[in-house]
């Protein structure tokens, strides 16, 4: 497939936004049970939600560049019964709304304690909103992943690993950003976030490498035999019907030389996983903001490459019909 930059930015940016929210909420959850110190609602959760929202909005904006008719984008909510894309279009704004609500409740301190659990743990309004938002965040990961995983003949994508990878990679980058953010605020949660970021990055590395191994060994079900329905072991294309390209040759081939294709794989394997983990580990225990910010920047650039590779690696069966110009 031809990697579209709009979709690369959409999926990576909302992944960061979702991950950052999940980081903030994890922090809050741990502070309720008094495992980690309580952070300031106003500056930490309020501003943190705003940053998450900014990433989500940037992702949403990027998605419009993918559309031929962005002004009709609202129509995309119509077929949520059958289309994962439609579901994503509904869930993304819903998630943004909930993050806004979560941030506002924290920022303006409209956060009454609803009830006290076992007379120790105070469950306030933001905790309830956050729980709901967390569910929606995971729904959004599911929708984004399933858009690709549900196309069964794109065999590189049609695996549960696609959804798992979107979830883990998004979460890992969000937690890395949360670490940089916490370090900037001199928050006591810095190491807590950094630990989670390392854990999630390593988990994502396992599942992403698993999907790469799977894709390397994939056996494509379609062949030129089934494509034109002639049972012969030796079929070659002599003409694709036109000389200078069409939608079929532009949309479904990545067009990069094999050397570039391979080096992008190694680039993201280094920049998404080991480098951020090393930087996060170095920064733990009172590190500077810069080292965490660098970890996030490197990981995000790596994720762009990862997403490029994700698209480029998918082999569409229609390509069988476009092997030779003529």
């Amino acid at each position, binding site marked *: 497939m031809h990697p579209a930059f709009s979709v690369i930015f959409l999926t990576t940016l909302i992944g960061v936004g979702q991950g950052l929210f999940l980081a903030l909420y994890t922090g809050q959850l741990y502070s309720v049970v008094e495992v980690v110190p309580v952070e300031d609602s106003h500056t930490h959760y309020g501003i943190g939600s705003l940053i998450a929202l900014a990433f989500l909005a940037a992702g949403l904006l990027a998605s419009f560049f993918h559309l031929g008719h962005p002004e009709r984008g609202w129509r*995309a909510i119509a077929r949520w019964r*059958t289309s994962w894309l439609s579901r994503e279009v509904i869930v993304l704004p819903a998630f943004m709304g909930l993050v806004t609500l979560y941030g506002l409740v924290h920022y303006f301190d409209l956060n009454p304690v609803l009830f006290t659990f076992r007379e120790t743990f105070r469950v306030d309004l933001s905790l309830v909103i956050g729980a709901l938002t967390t569910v929606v965040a995971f729904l959004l990961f599911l929708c984004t992943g399933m858009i690709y995983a549900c196309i069964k*003949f794109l065999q590189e994508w049609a695996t549960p690993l696609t959804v798992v990878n979107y979830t883990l990679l998004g979460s890992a980058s969000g937690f890395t950003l949360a670490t940089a953010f916490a370090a900037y605020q001199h928050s006591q949660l810095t190491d807590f976030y950094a630990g989670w970021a390392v854990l999630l990055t390593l988990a994502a590395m396992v599942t992403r490498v698993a999907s790469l191994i799977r894709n390397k060994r994939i056996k494509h079900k379609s062949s030129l035999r089934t494509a034109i329905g002639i049972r012969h072991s030796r079929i070659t294309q002599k003409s694709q019907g036109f000389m200078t*390209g069409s939608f079929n040759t532009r949309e479904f081939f990545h067009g990069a030389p094999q050397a570039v294709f391979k080096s992008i794989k190694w680039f993201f394997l280094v920049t998404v996983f080991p480098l951020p983990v090393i930087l996060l580990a170095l920064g733990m225990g009172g590190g500077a903001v810069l080292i965490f910010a660098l970890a996030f920047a490197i990981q995000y650039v790596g994720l762009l490459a990862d997403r490029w590779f994700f698209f480029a690696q998918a082999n569409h069966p229609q390509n069988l019909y476009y092997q030779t110009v003529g």
Partner: protein
Amino acid sequence: MTQLALVIDLNVCVGCHACVTSCKEWNTSGSAGYLSDMNPFSHDPTGTFFNRVQTFEVGEFPNTETVHFPKSCLHCEDPPCVPVCPTGASYKRDEDGIVLVDYDKCIGCKYCSWACPYGVRELDEHQKVMKKCTLCVDRIYDHSLPENERKPACVMACPTNARLFGDVDDPDSEVAEAIRERGGYQLMPEWGTRPANHYLPRSKTRITIHEDELTRVDNPLKKERQLPMPDKDAPTLDDVTSW
């Protein structure tokens, strides 16, 4: 149920591209808007087409066979492109099974083209909506045309009658009969899309001759033996010359 479809006879397709040009001509002049071209008269011309003819070579020289292969939307009975459309712009008509795109609803997200294993949907570069074969839906029901012209433009154009059009669900139709009796098959059956369009395989008329039928080993009637020379005094053909 009605399922209109094309049946393409690979046995007689000569790869002349008449269906391609006729399709383009009809559909670029249609009420739904033109099929746009980019740089039609300069470097790297490209454009939107509903139908293409490709050529494949089967076998290894000298035992090769050239197969011309027309490819357009197969109007699947279980079209994978339809459920993925987020707006409902892509739909399959209940009354005749034609898969169509509502150009006013399409947002140009290209997701349906990803979800089609055959690569028969194209984004129009000017109108920015997804386009595909309509089976000339604006022709086949047009009562201002004579009845024998209410067929898709490609079918009308084919000089070798390689394209048959009709209702594949009607067992008595020409197309259903052709599929049944001449081994009509579907493309990429592995994905369960159940294409309505079928292809008729190439077939050869063969005669089986055994070696012993070519040279007569025994000749009981002595049919081809060399005749003995007649007697000197036997009458000759013209009674003048003698042996």
